[in-house]
């Protein structure tokens, strides 16, 4: 049973703000959805997973980068070529 406090904790982990009305609704929906998922837990885990592809590599070759202009194009108020981000200290 998922509680509102669990949903709040998850929202914090996911860096997503949710309103109090969303909180109640999500909690209720999650319980219904997770109950629906419960059938998975009846499965025995047997043997390793099959791998259709293994060992996909590229050679260590340098290819062109995008321009600094393109790299900064969608960011906000870049400064001297650096991208601006929220504070960390």
């Amino acid at each position, binding site marked *: 049973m998922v509680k509102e406090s669990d949903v709040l904790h998850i929202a914090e*982990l996911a*860096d997503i703000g949710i309103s109090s009305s969303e909180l109640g609704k999500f909690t209720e929906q999650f319980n219904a959805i997770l109950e629906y998922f419960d059938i998975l837990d009846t499965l025995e885990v047997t043997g390793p997973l099959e*791998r*259709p*592809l*293994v*060992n*996909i*590599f*590229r*050679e*260590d*070759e*340098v*290819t*062109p*980068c*995008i*321009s*600094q202009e393109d*790299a*900064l194009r969608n960011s906000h108020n*870049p*400064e*001297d*070529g*650096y*991208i*601006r*981000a*929220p*504070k*960390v*200290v």
Partner: protein
Amino acid sequence: MADEEYIVVIGLEVHCQLDTSSKLFCGCSADFRADAPNTHVCPVCLGLPGALPVLNKKAIEYALKVAKALNCKIPQEAEFCRKNYFYPDLVKAYQITMGDNPLALGGYIEIEDDAGNPKVVNLTRIHVEEDPGRLIHMGNKERGHYTLVDYNRSGIPLIEMVTEPELCSPKEARRLLNKLRATLEYLDVFDPDKEGSIRVDANISIKGHERVEIKNISSYKGVEKALTFEITRQKNLIRRGGSIARETRHFQEGKGTTTSARSKETATDYRYFPEPDLPVIRVSDWMDNIVLPELPDARRDRFMNQYGIAVNHARTLTGDLHLAEFYELIAPVGSQIAASWIADILIGELNYRDMPLSKIISHAGQFKDLLVLVRDQQITDKAGIDVLRVWLDSLSGTGSPETPGQIVARLGLTRESGESFRGIVEKILTNNPQAIADHKAGKKGALNFIVGQVMKETKGKSDPREIHAMISEILGE
């Protein structure tokens, strides 16, 4: 409680950048240090929506080389995972790394303990992961509290080597790092001279107490400093009856201290799961084809056998690949004189000048000439050191370039025979009756003062042994 009852337990997580040409998952050049910010990026390493990673084969080859050199086992299958957390340097909000299925397991490194005895430190695992970008400006009141980020480093391949908690002192930790660095350098997969190419997280605890993690120490000296500080801090806390909190701390390189990270930063649930954009890798059978070069320990043993030099010289000379190669270039002059001049004199002079060995490698011939002058007693050891200093200064750009021969000629340092200094010796003996009296009274070393005075007066052109003999003769002994 007596100090020896505090048993220190240290484990390290060492991250080294692998010296590939391109990044781990894209073709952007990894040689970014001299370039403008955000110019070594593409949709992949900038984490643009829709971009996909493709694994650089060389990074895996390099990591396997390290795994073989460190005696690891390679599981049948390794798998990249996503480690999910938010931070402005992390473009995708996850780091592609390895979780439950790393590239290599086990392995060990041999070092010496603090008593000089051989010690085996076991490894837990080795894995490959991508480096995040770099925060440049951390914000301040004047410019605002925002952060500035350069993503050129984003996606540089890293190898993470995790030791078991088996180290017992900061000095051991330092030796382990030195050994690792040398090994990776010998393997030609790592360039220790690149800024920030090695970063260390350390776990440290005092036996019977909680463990503390110190994050992101970015220099060899820093590791020793941070651990030393942390041991003192923890001991003091215990002594005062406090308890150690299980926590993550940051090392403040400038102050040499550690500070507690805020709990919100550390209470992260990383939500590891397999990276769906990268198929698994099965490379255990590559190990047989990896040919390892001679590694530091083997080279040390060879130096002792081939050149007949002492173990401490051999260890110092082989502790750095370029130093070992330099020694082998110089050794034909005389393996002993080369060993002692490089290990005992040159390294100190370079460190004093903060000068990398690379600056003199291309001038090895001139260094050889200098040692020939010393070996053939054309100049004295003392004069040799003076010449070395002037020569290093000239190479480091503070003076005009000069060969050792030119320096000797300009400063008139050619060794002269003792007889030409007889007048000076007599004068100094006359001026220092007390020293002679002390000597005659049997005080050991009293004559050394006289010899020193003569050396000074003759600007090092005299040979101390010869002067000693002359003094004895004058004093009628």
